[in-house]
């Protein structure tokens, strides 16, 4: 564990050094990320200018949900997104995965954290502020118990998002290169941003079990805002463990398929 954090520290330090050399590129990259967040927020504000409730949630509850999703996504986009993207697009096709296999560190984690993007964190303070602002404007107070469970589920959601990302990109071992694999988790973020009960039942069922993105967003926020049902909490934790296990199995199976040949 100590080794993991030490490697992360070095990678982030190097990323900052690299980014400082290309400050203009970094600035425009950061603006794209910020704009993406602003657009999500603008849609919610426009929606609530036309209605008081969305799927039974008021504006502050929805803002908490959207901010929570953006915080999870931002942390991933800074930490694991580029590494996993390069894996899907290049490492298998060009044989670069060899480099990670030779390291004395878990290759799946090593690939994931290999390309941190510090500037992607620009959205983080913005959405933390929106989260805090919305919590302050709720008409009810959140208990310590709600917060406690929520923090636990925040960690679980973060890991579950990562596990789903690994599960969706691992087929790259077999199909060598596919940009569309990367798009899966990106597109799913659009669904996660709104309260699940605006969607039809089959949609909720699918996205709570087979591709459990509502377990990343909707359930943890529901536990924070409303009566924290123990069934939700156990479900999210068990699902996280299960998906992480499946991600590991699929990655290992993929590694056996990896031929190290380049094109």
């Amino acid at each position: 564990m100590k080794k993991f954090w030490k490697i992360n520290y070095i990678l982030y330090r190097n990323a900052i050094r690299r980014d400082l050399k290309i400050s203009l590129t970094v600035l425009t990259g950061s603006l794209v990320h910020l704009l993406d967040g602003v657009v999500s927020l603008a849609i919610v504000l426009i929606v609530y200018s036309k209605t008081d409730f969305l799927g039974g949630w008021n504006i502050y509850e929805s803002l908490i949900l959207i901010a929570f999703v953006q915080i999870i996504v931002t942390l991933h986009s800074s930490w694991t997104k580029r590494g996993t993207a390069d894996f899907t697009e290049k490492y298998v096709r060009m044989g670069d995965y060899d480099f990670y296999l030779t390291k004395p560190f878990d290759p799946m984690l090593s690939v994931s954290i290999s390309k941190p993007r510090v500037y992607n964190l620009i959205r983080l303070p913005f959405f933390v502020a929106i989260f805090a602002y919305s919590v302050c404007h709720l008409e009810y107070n959140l208990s310590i118990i709600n917060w406690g469970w929520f923090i636990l589920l925040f960690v679980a959601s973060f890991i579950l998002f990562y596990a789903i990302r690994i599960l969706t990109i691992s087929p790259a071992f077999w199909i060598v290169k596919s940009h569309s694999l990367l798009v899966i988790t990106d597109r799913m973020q659009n669904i996660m941003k709104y309260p699940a009960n605006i969607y039809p039942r089959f949609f909720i069922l699918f996205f709570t079990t087979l591709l459990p993105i509502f377990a990343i967003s909707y359930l943890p926020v529901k536990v924070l805002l409303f009566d924290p049902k123990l069934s939700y909490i156990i479900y999210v934790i068990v699902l996280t463990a299960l998906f992480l296990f499946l991600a590991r199995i699929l990655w290992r199976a993929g590694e056996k398929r990896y031929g190290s040949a380049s094109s």
Partner: protein
Amino acid sequence: MVYFKKSIKTNLPYSPNFFFTQILDLVFFLTFFYLWRSVYEDSDTLVISGYTLSGIITYYFATELVFRFDVIGAIYLNWDIWDGYFTNWLIKPIRLTFLYILDPIVEKTLVIILALPTILISYLIARNFLDLPSLSYFGLFLITVGFTFMFNILFNLMLHTLCFKHGDQDNNIELINYLSWLLAGAFFPLNFVPGILGKILEILPFKYLMYFPVNVFLGKYSPKEIVLGWLTMAVWMTIFYLLYKKIFRNGLKYYTGVGR
């Protein structure tokens, strides 16, 4: 024609990738479909800013059609200049502008064909809410989309030529395109934006990228207004083309062919 056929062949191995991406893009339509359905049901309102529920669902359906013509990632001028590959084209006896216009046309032809099942799925899901246009308005819509496509290509080519003097423009192009789609009404109709800001957005040329063609689909403009829109787009396209030509000619002086 030779280049067109060759490009189709080059892109064909990537067609499963294109196809799967089109399927995933369905998420945008579905999210907006369920989002706005919920808004209209929760607010007990029949008309919001001039749009009925059918109107707004049709708006996003048409948005999905127009989005297929998004040229970002289908024009390679910036990358060619930046890595020096542009030299290969310079020494050939072909018109470069024509070539760079042809690239997105080829790619989008393939994308449109591969997107047909996705469009059909969208239609089947939302068919009870769609206000489809008459045949004549659908024809006007197709012509407008043609204009929009060229408008978008010339606008992006202009941005790509900045690479000659200012280096890699990838991030800038992405940023400007994202901003353009926002200002074009790709995420919500422009008249949903309240106050003076909404009025400014209607004056800016970005609306021709999305809001204008989509409202042609919805039959919100008279034929006279549509023709006026086409003329305005033609003026903007001429401006973009002239700027592109000027920056291109000046830019060539800075081109070293070394690459990065």
